[in-house]
């Protein structure tokens, strides 16, 4: 129990250090653009692939489970849309990104720690936490909502493709279903969640990487802890945000 409080305290101080003033704005902007590419653009492929397949599976499973005469077929589009908007594109995609982006951040910073590159920055008089982590945090918070929007589009398209190609739903029914009783707030809710999850993933992963000590083995352990702790926090905050925003 004490360990949890120790980590919460150290994490809070770490986040405070991360939000220190950048050394030089031109270098910060350059780092930020590199991180947007590294953490965001390079994750587009996996987000698109997972989203298209998940959209397809959601549609087909709903179809097989709602094969009743009194349920209209457009309900497939409606179910796919709400599943994707409310849960899949924000929470599940962010859990996947916790694995990809989180382990990337933790192992990169952890390796810099054990190879004394972070010490080298400190010796130069640079706030290493701010220099290394702030661009990652801002890049994640900026780019994750775009990834979530792309995931929504691709997921719904995947559902449409699977439903219409397998003959489970007519294309027109599916398109009617995804427009039926649409609540724009669901998109806002999903985007709010993605911003919170982006912050959680980037700061928690950076925290575990930054305080790595030892060698290659410890870098691996930090990377694993980063993914596990980020995932648990995502699930916890998912519950809290759902209660706060949808109740």
């Amino acid at each position: 129990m004490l360990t949890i409080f120790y980590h919460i305290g150290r994490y809070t101080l770490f986040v405070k250090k991360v939000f220190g003033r950048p050394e030089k704005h031109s270098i910060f902007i350059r780092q930020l653009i590199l991180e947007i590419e590294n953490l965001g653009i390079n994750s587009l492929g996996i987000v698109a692939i997972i989203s298209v397949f998940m959209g397809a599976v959601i549609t087909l499973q709903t179809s097989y489970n709602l094969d009743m005469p009194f349920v209209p077929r457009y309900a497939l589009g409606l179910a796919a849309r709400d599943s994707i908007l409310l849960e899949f594109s924000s929470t599940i995609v962010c859990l996947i990104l916790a694995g990809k982006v989180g382990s990337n951040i933790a192992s990169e910073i952890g390796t810099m720690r054990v190879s004394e590159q972070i010490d080298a920055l400190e010796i130069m008089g640079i706030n290493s936490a701010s220099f290394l982590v702030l661009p990652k945090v801002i890049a994640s918070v900026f780019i994750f909502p775009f990834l979530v929007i792309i995931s929504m589009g691709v997921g719904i398209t995947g559902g449409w493709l699977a439903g219409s190609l397998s003959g489970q739903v007519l294309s027109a029914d599916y398109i009617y279903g995804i427009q039926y009783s649409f609540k724009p707030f669901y998109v806002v809710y999903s985007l709010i969640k993605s911003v919170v999850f982006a912050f959680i993933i980037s700061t928690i992963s950076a925290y575990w990487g930054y305080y790595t000590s030892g060698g290659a083995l410890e870098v691996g352990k930090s990377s694993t802890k980063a993914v596990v702790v980020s995932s648990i926090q995502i699930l916890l905050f998912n519950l809290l945000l759902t209660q706060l925003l949808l109740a």
Partner: protein
Amino acid sequence: MIEVVNLCKSFDGNQVLKNISATFEPGKTNLIIGQSGSGKTVLIKSIVGLHTIDQGEVRYDDRIFSKMSTDQKKEVRQEIGMLFQGSALFDYMTVQENIKFPLDIFSKMSQAEKLERVNFCLHRVNLEKVNGFYPSEISGGMQKRVAIARAIALNPRYLICDEPNSGLDPQTAILIDELIQEITQEYNITTIINTHDMNSVMSIGEKIIFIYKGQKFWEGTKDEIFDTDNETLNNFVFASELFKKIKKAHL
């Protein structure tokens, strides 16, 4: 000049450094020697502020570094160049970017001036035409020289080297030692070298401090080390047959 006064440092109740006092003079290569685990690296890291000390003072030319605020420390740190055991070059940057990095952050030079300074530093460490290489693409000895070039890019007043010869062949190790000594004398830098390489002790040890079990056990020069009757020091320095023979010949 760097001064350490009654420095103590412990980790989890285990006292690693016990009341160490020493003076490191400018223009001289000051060596800290000792067995593995004796506290050399902790001492070096305490001097540069990577470890917070428990007791005592670290002074940089009469400025009490250990009692400074973060911003004041930041200013002093810009006067420190440090060479790490594993070079600590940023592996996502090229050689040129590594050396230019402190200039980008702290100098107001134009790009052309920065590049000129990078090439001068590379030339000073006897490296040419490696600007575009990444650290992983050059040898360990070259990485050490690039690290020295980065350390001197901002014209430091203090140069701290943590085992600069570790992992290098004897010939390259001698080159690195000579280079550090030349730079120290040329720019009148206060240099502290943490080493357990006896070749370094014999060739560039203008002032030597022997650390044993966290305490300063002996202080002197490379000439005085031959005449000492300190048994622990003799056992450490003249451990190999070769060095025993050298001592015998010297006496």
